[in-house]
């Protein structure tokens, strides 16, 4: 049996499979299907300072091998999240990666501060900074579309966290050069990167001849975007291997539905993988992907998960 232990900078996890933020709520719902403490980590729904209602409905549209969503970061706010959700996750022994966001860089820091101060913080193995959300102070431009805004958020959150505490910046692929954003985030103190968040899309209802989502645009996810995730991981990993940017661990996410999909992201350079939209198809998907990944490694004769991380770069045919 392959050793599934993965190292993400200062964080060591018994296996590399996680939920994806916003695709697993905060644990209770999936715990009916499998034990969430068996995952490498449980990634919570992005939480902001205050409660948010989210957007009008329809909020989703099915698309080929994927979906569009415009949930609008609906959530209870950090206070209720800590007392109810994080406390529950701690009670079942889950390793929690908490996803945070803010309308402004200062709000991100405030959310991080509340998190660190809470008694359930000891269940938290890392913070995922969801910078793929709109910056109210910058005309709603997504933080992760601008290196300066990305760096500002990351450095403010860094100040709130204990020294060397695992912190991952979650990037959007909707940028001209994802390596430049990755570089800015790492320089500002991100100990790792999570990629990718959803891609912006629109679906039109051809009966009504109007956008299907009430909010018009939504984020595209699911197996349809997997090649984009693999590409983003590949580009950042290549830049790290060539010392163009500092090397940090990558958590891969985008379109993982099976163990082989996970293996693809790992081979491109990810040290861990998250399962998102596939969970809507199969509520056991995160746990199933872990089992399938283990067999896939065994079948291929890999003794350790770390052997496959970035392996496709070494095996690339040079022309």
């Amino acid at each position, binding site marked *: 049996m392959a050793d599934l232990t993965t190292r993400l900078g200062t964080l060591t996890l018994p296996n590399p499979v996680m939920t994806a933020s*916003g*695709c*697993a*709520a905060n644990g*209770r*719902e*999936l715990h*009916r*299907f499998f034990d969430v403490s068996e995952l490498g980590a449980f990634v919570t*729904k992005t939480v902001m300072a*205050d*409660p*948010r*209602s*989210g*957007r*009008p*409905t*329809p*909020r*989703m549209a*099915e698309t*080929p*091998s*994927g*979906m569009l*969503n415009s*949930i*609008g*970061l*609906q*959530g209870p*706010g950090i206070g209720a999240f800590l007392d109810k959700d994080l406390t529950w996750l701690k009670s079942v022994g889950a390793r929690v990666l908490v996803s945070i966001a803010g*309308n402004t860089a200062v709000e991100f820091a405030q959310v991080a501060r509340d998190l660190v101060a809470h008694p359930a913080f000891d269940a938290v193995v890392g913070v995922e900074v969801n910078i793929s959300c*709109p910056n*109210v102070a910058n005309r709603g431009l997504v933080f992760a579309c601008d290196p300066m805004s990305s760096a500002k958020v990351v450095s403010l959150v860094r100040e709130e966290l204990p020294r060397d505490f695992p912190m991952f910046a979650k990037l959007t692929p909707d940028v001209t050069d994802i390596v430049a954003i990755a570089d800015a985030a790492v320089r500002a103190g991100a100990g790792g990167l999570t990629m990718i968040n959803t891609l912006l899309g629109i679906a039109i209802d051809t009966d*009504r001849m109007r956008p299907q989502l*009430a909010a018009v645009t939504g984020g595209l996810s*699911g*197996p349809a975007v997997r090649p984009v995730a693999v590409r983003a991981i590949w580009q950042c990993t290549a830049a790290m291997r060539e010392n163009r940017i500092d090397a940090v661990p990558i958590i891969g996410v985008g379109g993982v539905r099976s163990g082989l999909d996970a293996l693809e992201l790992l081979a491109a350079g990810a040290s861990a993988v998250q399962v998102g*939209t*596939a*969970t*809507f*198809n*199969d*509520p*056991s998907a995160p746990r199933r992907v872990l089992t399938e990944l283990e067999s896939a490694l065994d079948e291929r004769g890999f003794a350790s998960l770390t052997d496959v991380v970035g392996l496709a770069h070494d095996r690339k045919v040079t022309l």
Partner: protein
Amino acid sequence: MSDVVQVAGEVIAIRRVGAYQHLTIVAPGVAEAARPGQFVALAVGGPTSANLLRRCFSLHKVSPSGAYGGTLDVVIAAKGPGTQWLAGLRAHDKVDVVAPLGRPFPIPTEPVACVLVGGGYGSAPLFWLADVLRERGCHVEMVLGAASEDRLFGVVEARRSADGVTVTTDDGSAGRRGWVSDVLPEIITRTSAAVVYGCGPMGMLRSITEVATAHGAVAQVAVEESMACGVGVCMTCVMPVRGKDGTTRMVRSCVEGPVFRGDRVRWEAFTDGVCRVPADTVGAPRAGGH
């Protein structure tokens, strides 16, 4: 919410009923925990399907044991790709089942009179509900409404399950021409009904609520919001509902519903195929906000 199971179901019977397909699926472990008003989330298209999202259907009936093990029945209107795939299944085909989901219809503690109103396939869960209510000594009237006769479901079954049955169709092809809300006031008044249960299109549920409230009855309605997962993890199925504390929240209809007290739903938010977030909802966007 802990009794849900995920099982590889097997279709054992599929038959056409008017405009619908009636499926019986072997799904061990569902029947024991299921109650009327709960639903099943089915995966469509097999394990490599490009249609990832679950399709949700009211449980028409369940049976805990039998020649094949526990079964569940659903009544499906074929519309888009997922429901068409389901309608095309044959005996022994496999379909992944997650059930029972959501909150069931609350059952009155006293043997009061009840009116059960179903629009189109919305009547599917009501016969089972009628049986449960009659076991409790409730007087049960049913109202079945649809656009046309072929879209009515279960008129014969209704005569067996209820003490009185009224049928309406928009085009008059069966029963009275008109809407269920046209006949409802007289039935509530005649039977002194305390509860009106409804399942069907949102517009119908709204008018059932208005009629019930105006006649001193409580409406309990099973809503139909667009769902991606059915199990509470995606937040697509939300709608504005007033809580016991009077505060409106965007709640997940798959977990906190699908059955809601009709007078708690903010019906005015639903217009033109969109549901807006009422301004007094917890966490509603402020001007210039998200």
